[in-house]
């Protein structure tokens, strides 16, 4: 019983069904660990112990009557970007530090209906804008593998919570790498599904043509389990795709013989040190042993991903964040002189410095006289990048490369230079621009810090990605490592 936190979600589900422990016992175990460790890693903004214990008791009743499903009684933490009815939902911002969501996000509803127990809401970069979880109004999150290092971002709280085993799994969102990069930096399995696969309803918007919800957990098997419940059509999100969701768990064990893996030439050439490339190359060798074929592919426009993203994403952010006006919800400044002062000071005081930087970047690229030169041009280059990916998938089944150019860096090391920080997402942004599903899985360590392997697939190939990741995890042990302090 004292080792419950070391199990995967899949193992915990089996334990619950075999009545080895109850959901209440399991939930209490995790809540005790949250109490013990959250102070030092700052992974949670809100801990919902009362909600969790009530949901756990209800789950136990369901399990006792034989009615439970695959997820009934399993604890999970939600990134604080997902609206949760009656629970503080801050998006890591002072702007929403007083916001109690009046409804549940569709992702939250679906997991709730599947019997998931909510442990709490995890810390994140403010409005998901950051790659280190240092822009949060609620303070930086520490990497459980080394408390002086960042956990990555923006889903840094979710990453740290799962890596420190104070949650067995967590939701995340990925606009430019915000699931995959923190998963890589904390040795987790993270998946960003195809754009439109998971509903964005109730997920606080950053860049609407890029945002996509997903999961961070301990194995591809766990990811398949969670994604099954989260995915699928939702009429409340106008860009959610109305297409059947395959059984992700059913195809996990398909042999990889004959699988064609494309190696992204540009990824290995751009900003990757030989030491950091080694674990990735070792992983590729494992795939060769599993019968896969490695083929080098070139995506000539891929190096333009970062500049393209830093036009498109801020443009959409400046539009989405115009809703925060200090009137209907969120932070309002003290004693405004007039309406303009109310707007300007509520926003100026309520948003942190990185969010304001992106709002201004976006405002500028959309302003009269500049639209064609920036936004329109970026949308055209976005098509070139997307076409590059489409051409690659005519030759190969999946693409592989590193998730992040370096392992976790020191807290504070990059905060003064936004452009250096933006380049952390150099390998992850392409999949968002093209709307492709992509994963990061643990593939080794460099100087005792985790390294991630990125796997990118064609649209709606989540089942294939999970299969490819699972077979690697059957052949290797990297995903089973636990930071010593939290073992």
């Amino acid at each position, binding site marked *: 019983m004292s080792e419950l936190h070391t199990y995967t979600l899949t193992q915990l589900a089996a334990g619950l069904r075999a009545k080895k422990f109850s959901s209440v016992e399991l939930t209490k175990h995790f809540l005790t660990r949250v109490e013990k460790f959250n102070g030092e890693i700052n992974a949670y903004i809100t801990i919902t112990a009362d909600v969790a214990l009530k949901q756990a008791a209800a789950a136990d009743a369901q399990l006792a009557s034989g009615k439970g499903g695959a997820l009934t009684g399993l604890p999970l933490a939600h990134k604080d970007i997902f609206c949760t009815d009656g629970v503080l939902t801050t998006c890591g911002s002072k702007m929403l530090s*007083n*916001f*109690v969501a*009046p409804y549940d996000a569709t992702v939250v509803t679906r997991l709730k209906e599947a019997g998931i127990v909510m442990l709490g809401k995890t810390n994140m970069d403010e409005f998901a804008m950051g790659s280190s979880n240092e822009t949060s109004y609620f303070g930086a999150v520490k990497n459980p593998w080394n408390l002086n290092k960042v956990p990555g971002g923006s889903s840094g709280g979710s990453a740290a919570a799962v890596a420190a085993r104070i949650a067995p799994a967590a939701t995340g969102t990925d606009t430019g790498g915000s699931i995959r990069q923190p998963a890589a930096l904390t040795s987790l399995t993270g998946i960003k599904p195809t*754009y*439109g696969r998971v509903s964005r309803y109730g997920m606080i918007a950053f860049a609407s*043509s890029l945002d996509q919800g997903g999961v961070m957990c301990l194995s591809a098997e766990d990811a398949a389990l969670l994604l099954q419940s989260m995915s699928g059509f939702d009429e409340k999100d*106008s*860009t959610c795709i*109305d297409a059947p969701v395959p059984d992700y768990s059913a195809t996990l064990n398909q042999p990889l013989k004959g699988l064609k893996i494309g190696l992204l030439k540009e990824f290995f050439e751009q900003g990757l040190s030989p030491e950091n490339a080694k674990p990735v190359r070792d992983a590729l060798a494992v795939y060769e042993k599993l019968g896969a074929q490695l083929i080098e592919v070139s995506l000539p426009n891929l190096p*333009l991903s*970062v*500049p*393209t993203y*830093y*036009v498109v994403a801020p443009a959409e952010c*400046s539009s989405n964040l115009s809703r925060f*006006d*200090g*009137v*209907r*919800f*969120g932070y*309002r400044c003290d004693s*405004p002189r*007039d*309406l303009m002062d109310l*707007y*300007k*000071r509520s*926003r*100026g*005081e309520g948003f942190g*410095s990185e969010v*304001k*930087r992106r*709002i*201004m*970047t976006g*405002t*500028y690229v959309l*302003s009269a006289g500049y639209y064609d030169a*920036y936004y*329109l*041009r*970026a*949308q*055209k*280059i*976005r*098509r*070139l990048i*997307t076409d590059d990916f489409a051409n690659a998938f005519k030759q190969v089944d999946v693409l592989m490369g590193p998730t992040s150019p370096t392992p976790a860096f020191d807290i504070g090391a990059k905060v003064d*230079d*936004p*452009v250096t920080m*933006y380049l952390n997402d150099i390998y992850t942004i392409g999949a968002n*621009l*093209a*709307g492709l599903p992509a994963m990061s899985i643990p593939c080794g360590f460099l100087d005792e810090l985790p390294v991630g392997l990125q796997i990118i697939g064609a649209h709606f190939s989540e089942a294939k990605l999970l299969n490819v990741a699972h077979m690697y995890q059957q052949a290797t042990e990297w995903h089973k490592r636990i930071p010593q302090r939290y073992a």
Partner: protein
Amino acid sequence: MSLSRNDVENIAHLARLSMTEAEATEYATSLSKIFGLVAQLNAVDVSKVEPMAHPLAGQVQRLREDIVTATDEREKYQQNAVKIEAGLYLVPKVIE
């Protein structure tokens, strides 16, 4: 490309953001760096490329029947407002 503090103050006004002089100075530097990065896009010939508005090809905006689907939850929603009175949101006087 280089932005001045004055440029930043104009953008901040358009974005309805209050800003101190120190902030405006910092943003002039960092936004100039960002637009320096973005300038890489100018090297590409895009004259024959259609702009992309949706990441998935062939998707069209879905329409629904024009019928009432939401229920009135004004009271619940207004619990998040800092100032309301008689079901209305209060703001500083806008008409003299």
